[in-house]
């Protein structure tokens, strides 16, 4: 039993904490983010003035037992982290419907490379279906020797693998036009997540059905209300494609395709069809809406490119980043993410002077193929203006382009696959804004 006297100690402090959370979740964009960042950096001083939980006082939470086990059975983050959530993408118009829409991952609040399942970005074309796995089958047909049906239990009987890969929406980062200074890294780069995916190599299941030699493309179809479809080259299907049923150790989240999804490492996110129900092999691409009307790039030379599958190498600094505010001058660790749809990250360079000079960042091991890589670089901020940027080179030798270089090749009309170097402007005083 917990004595009531102790349990109700310091009510005023609890009230303050709740109030702070409510303010931040109201998304005052720059104000809220800057407030949270400033609060984190300046927290020691603030708490020393307010708190009776700091030395020499004994913290209130040490004076009685804490919560029971299984409070709740499926654990949740601390309520002091309630502002770390997916959000609509700032700087983009509100979509006419929330079922054909997106939400972005709070990259500024995450450490390491793994995206917690509840924070994986979303892009759905007709909402998240609620699927009973016992009534969800996978049909494999078309140019196969034997059309097959697999239940989810069937799929789980095959030899499995686990691999850590990023997924990035090809519409991630819209800095084509004049950069909007108020955007956070969640707004600019949050259509990016990285999980450990467990499933069956697609090649195993295709071999079970027998792929005819004429088969060059594979139609992948979802069981959502959009019956989302993409044509996938047979080389990719037989290379590193996965039929994934688990994500970061647990079964897929509904938003990520429960109970079965395609996972195409390094490809634009929409090709990894969620809620997968059908694979049809054919000799030609099927020219679905999502590879003609959408996800195609209008080029300045008058052609429109389709089947732009590979996400080229890209990197971004997540701290310090837009909406945050540095504290006093002195030491800060610059930290960010780098990735390539063609393989491993080979090198990340960091600049604090807008690209005039670069130095190599440290890469957190293990560096994996088609996976986020965390990079870090020490920095002593002198308190004056700075322009922070990162530049990745992948193992194929591809170097992330500057915005100017990318804009020479194509522009806002291509919309997708913006992978230029991201600049964050640090003003004297420490406020960080998007500099494109």
């Amino acid at each position, binding site marked *: 039993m917990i004595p009531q006297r102790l349990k109700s100690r310091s009510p005023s402090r609890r009230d303050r904490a709740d109030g702070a959370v409510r303010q931040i979740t109201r998304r005052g964009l720059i104000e809220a983010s800057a407030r949270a960042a400033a609060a984190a950096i300046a927290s020691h001083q603030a708490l020393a003035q307010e708190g009776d939980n700091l030395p020499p006082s004994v913290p209130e939470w040490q004076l009685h037992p804490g919560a029971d086990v299984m409070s709740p059975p499926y654990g949740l983050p601390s309520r002091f982290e309630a502002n770390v959530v997916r959000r609509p993408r700032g700087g983009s118009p509100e979509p006419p419907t929330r079922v054909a829409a997106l939400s972005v991952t709070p990259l500024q609040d995450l450490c390491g490379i793994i995206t917690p399942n509840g924070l994986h970005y979303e892009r759905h074309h007709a909402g998240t279906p609620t699927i009973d796995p016992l009534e969800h089958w996978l*049909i494999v047909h078309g140019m196969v020797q034997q059309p097959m049906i697999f239940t989810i239990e*069937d799929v789980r009987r095959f*030899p499995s693998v686990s691999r850590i890969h990023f997924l990035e929406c090809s519409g991630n980062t819209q800095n084509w036009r004049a950069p909007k200074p108020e955007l956070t890294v969640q707004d600019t780069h949050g259509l990016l997540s990285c999980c450990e995916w467990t499933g069956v190599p697609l090649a195993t299941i295709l071999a079970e059905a027998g792929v005819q030699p004429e088969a060059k493309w594979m139609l992948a179809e979802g069981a959502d209300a959009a019956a989302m479809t993409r044509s996938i080259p047979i080389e990719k299907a037989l290379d590193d494609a996965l039929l994934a049923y688990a994500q970061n150790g647990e079964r897929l989240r509904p938003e990520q395709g429960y109970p079965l999804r395609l996972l195409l490492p390094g490809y634009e996110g929409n090709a990894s069809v969620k809620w997968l129900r*059908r694979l049809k092999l054919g000799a030609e691409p099927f020219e679905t809406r999502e590879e*003609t009307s959408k996800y195609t790039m209008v080029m300045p030379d008058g052609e429109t490119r*389709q089947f732009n599958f590979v996400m*080229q190498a890209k990197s971004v600094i997540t701290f310090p980043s837009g909406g945050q505010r540095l504290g006093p001058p002195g030491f800060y660790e610059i930290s960010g993410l780098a990735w390539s749809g063609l393989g491993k990250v080979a090198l990340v360079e960091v600049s604090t002077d807008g690209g005039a000079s670069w130095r190599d960042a440290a890469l957190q091991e293990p560096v994996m193929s088609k996976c986020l890589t965390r990079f870090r670089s020490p920095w002593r901020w002198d308190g004056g203006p700075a322009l922070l940027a990162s530049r990745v080179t992948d193992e194929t030798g591809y170097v992330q382009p500057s915005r100017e270089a990318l804009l020479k090749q194509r522009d806002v009309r291509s919309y997708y696959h913006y992978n230029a170097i991201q600049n964050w402007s640090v003003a004297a005083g420490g406020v960080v804004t998007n500099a494109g």
Partner: protein
Amino acid sequence: MPDRIARRITLAIAATLAAGVVRAAEPYGIGRPATPQEIAGWDIGVSPSGAGLPSGRGGVRRGEAVYAEKCASCHGAYGEGKPMDQLVGGFGTVFDMKPHKTVGSFWPYATTLFDYVRRAMPLNAPQSLTPDEVYAVSAYVLFLNGIVSEETTLDKDNLAKIVMPNRDGFVSAYQSPSVGAKP
């Protein structure tokens, strides 16, 4: 252990690739054959060749009624859009900085229109239209774009023969697994 199995599969695939067919040397025997009836219920895709188009037919006038009832509230009375995608017009704007990419100005295949309406439209009741209704509303949207005449009736024999204005506007960026997209 999984690695060894995966290697065995890879070797088996490599061996069979040489023979032209990708087939497991030692099938696991998991799963069961799909029946033609089961496949038919789910195989709703339509290719540019017209493969996959169902029996049935529908004309522009019937399509006007279907459109008014099922589509106009999202796409506008004449396909002008708002709140959802604009379906009509926009010819010559594809390369503008603010293009109007519509069925008429941008979509390369009429089969894609049929396929998409059949699988995904209307947003609040996908796969609810009959094949006749899908043919009819496809005909109406093409009519609004000036691509077919008011007297047109579409079916599985003539829909794939329609030449869309932007048919030749697309090039594939897919080259090979090791090269991938152009920058």
